Structures are given as structure tokens and as C-alpha cells.
């Protein structure tokens, strides 16, 4: 292990990723084959498509990552791969490939939790600036989780202190975009449209759910009672509220017209979408985004105060949202809390974050045996 050069592989959802990262810090390459184009006609991630696309992409993506890094199968020190959470079939493509490499090359194999990867995406750029404990908000299409992270002698530990009770934040963005016939993926489109509307035009309420940890299933759990408040999210209600608004404001006809207009364009640009959005739609989109971002920021900062953390991290696909970055930066500054985001490239799913999260495990010789498998519902601890 001369310098800890790790080949990372990520196939948990809709991106096939491979990257080479040295010492958990230097990104030598970071290749992502996005499947969003393949998914666009379906308005989302389709599992069989996902698996098939991963199978098609995995070999060239890994080869390209090695070539761009100036490394070879023989020269890397370890193979790291996402174990979960994610789609079982998609995860298996990456895991099977990583196992084969590890076996054939006689290199250690490291399993990484996808959510831990998102947290370490931020450390790639800001490792020196982290003071612990860190509060991390991981916010994407499938996840909205708050973790308090600590590290002791390269052993990272995570405590979940909040999560969505129903829909993830990114899911709400996508469902609202689909509801309004704006296209897929919904998050980036709403992000681009929102500045054109009035964010105060429509009032939405999001329920507040701060509560003591009530999980008390079985005796084992009772003996392991954790103290401290939970800060849960809920974004099913605002999705329904947008639907009600569309119905009560009679927006169906204009939505149908937009759907028909955009269906005639092979790859609609944001300008194409903007052309078929009226003032009412733009105001609705802006108000929806403002409400989402303010709720995420308010709950995260309340949790930061409750747990007296030293640093705030916001990661995951929704962390690429411009209004979210501005709002978190402004609100964290008010309480003198440093806040860090991954670069845009590292916000969405990628393999550099997996290789980065694997580095402390490499230092600890925390390797997995060949019989480890995908865990679709893997929890982060």
C-alpha cells in the first residue's frame, strides 16, 4: 500500500461510475456513464434498464478510469465498491465485477455504503477544514438523511438523527416536475426555472417533526435507547399540495399543452421548457422550491444546534441545487457554522466518493470477504 491508490466502482442506481483516487484526496480520474438519457422516456430509473446499462458500461468505464489516471489493474492498491443501499440488480453488477478484479489481481476488496460515499465526496475537497462532530445532510432522489459523523483513528461512525418519513426531497422535485410536465430529471429543471418565478406567490406548509427517538421495537432496542431529538422530514404533503393547486387553479389544460409541445422536441433544452411555461407555472415552481429549500435548511440547522456540531456538510444530488446552496450558506453563516458542499460533479452519484470513503478502511485493513453481497436496504452506522 505505497500511497493508497484505490479503484472505486459505483453502480447503485442510474450511473455507472469508476474512479481512481489516491490517499482519499487526489482524484486521478472520475468517469461516470449517465443513464439519464436512457431513462428519459420513462420519467425515472427503470431497474432492468439500469442493470443492463451497467453491464454494458462497466468494463469501458473502469478501463477509461484507469487510463485517465495513468494506472493499471496491477498498479492500484485496492478495489472499492458500493454495497448498498440501491437497486439489488444494479448493485450486483458493480459488486460482481469488483469481486472478480479483487480475486484475479489478489488485491483487497473494500465495501462502501453509498451514503457514506456522499459524505466523503465533500471531504475530497475540504478534508483539512473539517472539525468534528460533523452534521451531514444527504439529500437525493432516494434519500433524505441527517447523520452526525465522528472519526477516531480512521474509524468513522455515523448516527442517524433524522430522515424522511415518506418521500425523499429529490423525489418531490421529480414528481412535481412530472406533474407539471416539465421533464426529467425534475430537480435540475426546477432549479433552472425557479429564478424566473415569484417564490412568494404560493404558500405551502410543511409539517414540523421534531421528536424524541421513539423507536422501541423489541427489548434489544429498549436496552439501546439513544437520547437526543430526531429531526424528520416529510415531503409527501407538499407534493399533494401542488397537485391540489393544479386542480383548483385549473392548470390541467396548460399542462397538457406543455406535455404535447415538449413531446415534439427530441431533447428539450431549458429554453424550450421556459417557452411553454406561463407565469402561474413559474410562480408555482419557484414557490415549491423555496418551501423545500427553506424546510431542509431550517431542520438541518436546528439539528446542528441541538447536536452542537462543528461543521455542516450537504451532499447528494439535491445539493447541486443553486437556491439550496445559497440558503444553506446564508443560514449557516448566521450561526458561524462552516458549511461545505461537494463540487457539482461530486454531488450526484460517482465513484470517486466511493474510493475516498474506502481510504480510511484501507488504512484500517477493513476488507470484505468474497462472499459479501449487495444489501439493497443497507443502513449507515
Amino acid at each position: 500500500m505505497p500511497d493508497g491508490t484505490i479503484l472505486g466502482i459505483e453502480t447503485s442506481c442510474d450511473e455507472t461510475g469508476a474512479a481512481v483516487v489516491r490517499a482519499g484526496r487526489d482524484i486521478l480520474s472520475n468517469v461516470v456513464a449517465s443513464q439519464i438519457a436512457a431513462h428519459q422516456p420513462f420519467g425515472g430509473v427503470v431497474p432492468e434498464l439500469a442493470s443492463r446499462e451497467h453491464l454494458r458500461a462497466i468494463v469501458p468505464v473502469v478501463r477509461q478510469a484507469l487510463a485517465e489516471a495513468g494506472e493499471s489493474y496491477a498498479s492500484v492498491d485496492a478495489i472499492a465498491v458500493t454495497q448498498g443501499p440501491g437497486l439489488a440488480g444494479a448493485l450486483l453488477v458493480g459488486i460482481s465485477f469488483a469481486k472478480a478484479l479483487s480475486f484475479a489481481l489478489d488485491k483487497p476488496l473494500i465495501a462502501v455504503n453509498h451514503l457514506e460515499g456522499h459524505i466523503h465526496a465533500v471531504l475530497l475537497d475540504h478534508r483539512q477544514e473539517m472539525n468534528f462532530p460533523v452534521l451531514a445532510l444527504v439529500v437525493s432522489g432516494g434519500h433524505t438523511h441527517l447523520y452526525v459523523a465522528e472519526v477516531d483513528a480512521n474509524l468513522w461512525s455515523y448516527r442517524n438523527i433524522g430522515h424522511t418519513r415518506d418521500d425523499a426531497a429529490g423525489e418531490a422535485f421529480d414528481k412535481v416536475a412530472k406533474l407539471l410536465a416539465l421533464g426529467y430529471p425534475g430537480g435540475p429543471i426546477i432549479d433552472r426555472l425557479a429564478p424566473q418565478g415569484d417564490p412568494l406567490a404560493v404558500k405551502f406548509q410543511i409539517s414540523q417533526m421534531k421528536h424524541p427517538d421513539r423507536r422501541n421495537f423489541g427489548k434489544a432496542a429498549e436496552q439501546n435507547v439513544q437520547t437526543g431529538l430526531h429531526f424528520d422530514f416529510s415531503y409527501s404533503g407538499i407534493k399533494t399540495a401542488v397537485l391540489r393547486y393544479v386542480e383548483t387553479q385549473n392548470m390541467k389544460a396548460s399542462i397538457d399543452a406543455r406535455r404535447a409541445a415538449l413531446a415534439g422536441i427530441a431533447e428539450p433544452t431549458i429554453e424550450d421548457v421556459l417557452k411553454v411555461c406561463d407565469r402561474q407555472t413559474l410562480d408555482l415552481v419557484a414557490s415549491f422550491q423555496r418551501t423545500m429549500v427553506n424546510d431542509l435548511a431550517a431542520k438541518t440547522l436546528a439539528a446542528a444546534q441541538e447536536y452542537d456540531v462543528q461543521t455542516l456538510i450537504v451532499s447528494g444530488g439535491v445539493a447541486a441545487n443553486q437556491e439550496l446552496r445559497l440558503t444553506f450558506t446564508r443560514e449557516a453563516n448566521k450561526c458561524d457554522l462552516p458549511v461545505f458542499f461537494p463540487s457539482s460533479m461530486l454531488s450526484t452519484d460517482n465513484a470517486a466518493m466511493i474510493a475516498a470513503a474506502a481510504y480510511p478502511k484501507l488504512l484500517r485493513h477493513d476488507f470484505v470477504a468474497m462472499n459479501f453481497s449487495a444489501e439493497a436496504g443497507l443502513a449507515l452506522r
Partner: protein
Amino acid sequence: MQSASSGILGQGSPEDVSPLRYTGVISGMQAQTITHSAEETIAFGRELAGEILPPLLVLLSGDLGAGKTTLIKGIAEGFGAAHAEDVTSPTFTLVHEYRGPKITLFHIDLYRIDTERELETLALDDLIAPNCILLVEWGEKFPQLLRDKNLQIDLQRVSDQERKIRLS
């Protein structure tokens, strides 16, 4: 589009997929009820859990925000498979699994699945076992699931808080 892939998930070609078969029994529930809050919907789900036996295919239908996931929170609690707070939307993740002491629940969301072939690749057949209950959202889009279901639950929004729940 290419033809169906096979192998990675252990699934064969569409012709190999046998019809879904379930033998579960339902008894003693009122065919229609009105709940007046999310808490009541969850309580109804808990009660329902006491009345259904695996293996079972349950379809849940209703518009966005009708309360499908909310009802499943109650069913999962009723089986001791998960705390209501931990049952979340599987729209992106597609399949969530909750293991209780006796029964495993699969919470499946077909919101993003549009064709029969995509449905077949989810291999729902492989999920059904003697101790399993499949709770499927947006399953009514597929004639095969409508035909093979043991129970259909329709949820309808009556007002902000009220939901009409029908079992058939």
C-alpha cells in the same frame, strides 16, 4: 430497444415467467371505511394486518397523496415488521423489504414502471414465498396483477384529512 436481458437477476425470458399464484385468505374486514386522519389510516392498516395471511398479493390504488404509503406504515407496524416512521416511499428505490418475526413485507412502487416487460424484469414471482406479502402501489396499470391479486385496496381523498378506503 433490445430484447430482454437475463441472467444478472436470475430471471428468464418473459415466456418462462409463470403466472403469479397466491392463496391468501382475507376475512372479517368492513368493505368500506372512512378515516379522518393519517393516524386513523395507520390504525386501519394495523387492524388489516391482523386479518390477512401470506402469501398474498395486495394492490393499493389511489391518486398521488391518497395515503397508500401511509396505510402501508400501519400494515408494517401490525406485523411488527417496521416502525411507521421507517416506512418510506419506494418510488426511486422501487422495492422496500420489511422483515417481521413471522412475515416479510415487500413494499413495491410501480409509479415509474410503464410496460409489461419492465414489470416482468422486477421478478415479483421471485419475491413471493409462503411467508411473504406483496404490497404494490400503482399495480392496477397491469392486467396480470389485476387478475392475480388477492386483495385490492382503493384509497380516495375525501377532504384534506379524510380518506375513503375500500377493500375488494
